[in-house]
């Protein structure tokens, strides 16, 4: 059997984002869950977040983000061979989200599938898409993170209501002469998979129609200690296996979980002052799988991203699972 021709390397070519029109302030979020504005900002670092309206469906937001990424590159959607969508809020069992997104985007010959691993989904999908490019299975791939967390969040829960938000981000990747996407570091602790979970499964909700709708619930303390130990170690391995240190890194784009978690990572990792830390969470909240490409997108709209900069992306969350990689910014 002939094995097929490898492409070699992969790189990011363009970044795009979509932020819903409606802004929800801390005053509004606080009123819904019985806390104060100051309580929210001090515990989450969030000042406001975006919540999608009825027309801003997951597919619509994913398509807008992908179009924005394509527009920055000049690549025709018809030339995209692979569309991966990372999401934890696609609330229909069948079909997956990606084929509809690819088709309506104009990527009509692309293969399209969903990658579901919660907040680390974008970095998993990026790693897999990069391998599809390197192995020669596709030339251009879109990696999209899209979430309507508001559909699966209870606004009255102070632990999650003010935190989670909606939006979509995307990157286009393609072949390269030199490595533009580094080796992935990934892992999971499935023994703690109930640390972030739903209040009920769909099957349970279906059996008990009078009950409350399923909503995300989490044990913030256990999440914190997992990140502080395992995720911090994994971030260190991401650098060491690529033979670089933070001296070489220009930008750190962690999952925008919570401003306090980002602060803790900066401290634990002894991040040098020159490293630009993405803090899109302040205005976007925690958009799960969409948070890393949205945070990247903000670096471009604020003209703080420089072509060729080395950026460390790192996703972590429900599973508990993590994944991250170094990338060269387009």
């Amino acid at each position, binding site marked *: 059997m*002939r094995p097929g021709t490898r492409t070699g390397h992969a790189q990011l070519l363009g970044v795009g984002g979509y932020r819903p029109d409606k802004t929800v302030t801390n005053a509004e979020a606080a009123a819904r869950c019985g806390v104060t504005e100051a309580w929210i900002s001090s515990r989450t670092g969030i000042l406001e977040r975006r919540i999608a309206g009825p027309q801003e469906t997951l597919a619509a937001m994913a398509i807008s983000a992908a179009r924005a990424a394509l527009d920055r590159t000049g690549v025709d959607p018809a030339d995209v061979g692979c569309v991966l969508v990372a999401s934890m809020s696609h609330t229909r069992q069948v079909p997956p989200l990606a*084929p509809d997104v690819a088709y309506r985007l104009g990527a009509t010959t692309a293969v399209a599938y969903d990658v579901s691993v919660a907040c680390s989904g974008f970095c998993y999908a990026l790693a897999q898409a990069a391998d599809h490019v390197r192995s020669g*299975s596709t030339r251009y791939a879109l990696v999209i993170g899209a979430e309507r967390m508001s559909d699966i969040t209870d606004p009255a829960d102070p632990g999650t209501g003010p935190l989670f938000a909606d939006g979509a981000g995307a990157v286009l990747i393609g072949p390269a002469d030199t490595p533009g996407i580094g080796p992935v570091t990934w892992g999971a602790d499935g023994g703690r998979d109930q640390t972030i979970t739903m209040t009920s499964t769909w099957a349970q909700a279906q059996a008990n129609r009078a009950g409350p709708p399923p909503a995300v619930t989490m044990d913030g303390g256990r999440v914190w200690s997992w990140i502080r130990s395992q995720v911090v170690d994994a971030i260190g391995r991401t650098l060491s296996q690529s033979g670089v240190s933070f001296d070489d890194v220009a930008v750190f784009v962690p999952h925008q979980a919570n401003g306090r978690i980002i602060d803790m990572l900066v401290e634990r990792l002894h991040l040098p002052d020159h490293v630009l830390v993405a803090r899109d969470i302040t205005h976007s909240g925690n958009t799960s799988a969409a948070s890393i490409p949205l945070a990247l997108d903000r670096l471009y709209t604020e003209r703080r991203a420089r072509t060729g900069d080395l950026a460390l992306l790192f996703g972590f969350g429900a599973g508990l*699972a993590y994944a991250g990689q170094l990338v060269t910014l387009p």
Partner: protein
Amino acid sequence: MSASLAAPEAVIRGVGAHRPLRVVDNPEIAERIGVPAGWIESHTGITQRRHTAGGETLETMAVAAGTNALIAADVPAADVDCLILASQTHLTQTPPLAPLVAHRLGAHAAGVFDLKAACAGFCLGLAAARDQIRAGTSRHVLVIAAEHISPITDPTDRDTAMIFADGAGAVLVTAAEESGVGPVVWGSQGALIDALVSRPGWLDMIADPGLGHSVLVMNGKDLTRWVLRHSPAIVEAALSASGLTLTDLAAFVPHQANMRIIDMLVERLAIPDTVAVARDIAVTGNTSAASIPLALAALLHQGGTKPGDLALLMAYGAGVTYAAQVIAVPAAVRTTGGQP
């Protein structure tokens, strides 16, 4: 930034399967959907299918199939670099299922993700595993396809109740010098997004207590027409990408959607008599993403192929999403649960 210099190929080292314990025969279904006995077999070629029983869940089936693939391949769980779980029937938004399955297996070093591509999920997972290995990201990838479809099937719906069934299959893919998993030929056609959907969506179901359960609704005619029209080009492309023709094949393992579709495919593709055609659907039903590894396991148990024989896999399903690739058949297979 350094990159891996290794340039290995991917090969399937072992196949695992788990068949649920409860056999559901045609008379039981025929009564529910209001058709004469014999009608189901003549229309679908299915004589029985299996549903979960005795505490079997999506998780336990996935763990069993994964365990069996690891045992067959003689690879310790701790050596698995990535676990890909293909399923369309994990009935919750979070957590994903792959982390728990990896934990139960003891695959503590593995990256994990759920892959959602309906009935094409296994072949896409296999392509993902191959590309991870060729790119140097992983050396051992466990691809598990598991489906617990009975909970999202309307037991009285003629289009789906007699077809869909439960089960899990898995393969352990490893790095090797010789290629044992050929280039994938794949794509999606979102214009046919309505051909197979679950209705109502979960949010609608929650919002309106008057709505029934969320179940699969299938327009089988549209799907079948699409598959028959496009499969010759897909198969031709998959074979030529591996430098092969139909006469090089020892086996053809299409998605086990319906025996009549398999018969039509064999005719349309002019599959030679020398090629063993997987017809596991007769006793297993349509297990969506799990159907190809289950059918492959059955073929290996029957001894219809020998190690190194070439088999063409072709999957298609909701989306529409399809994927096809040639594989070298492994020697090792292990099945638990109800025996075929």
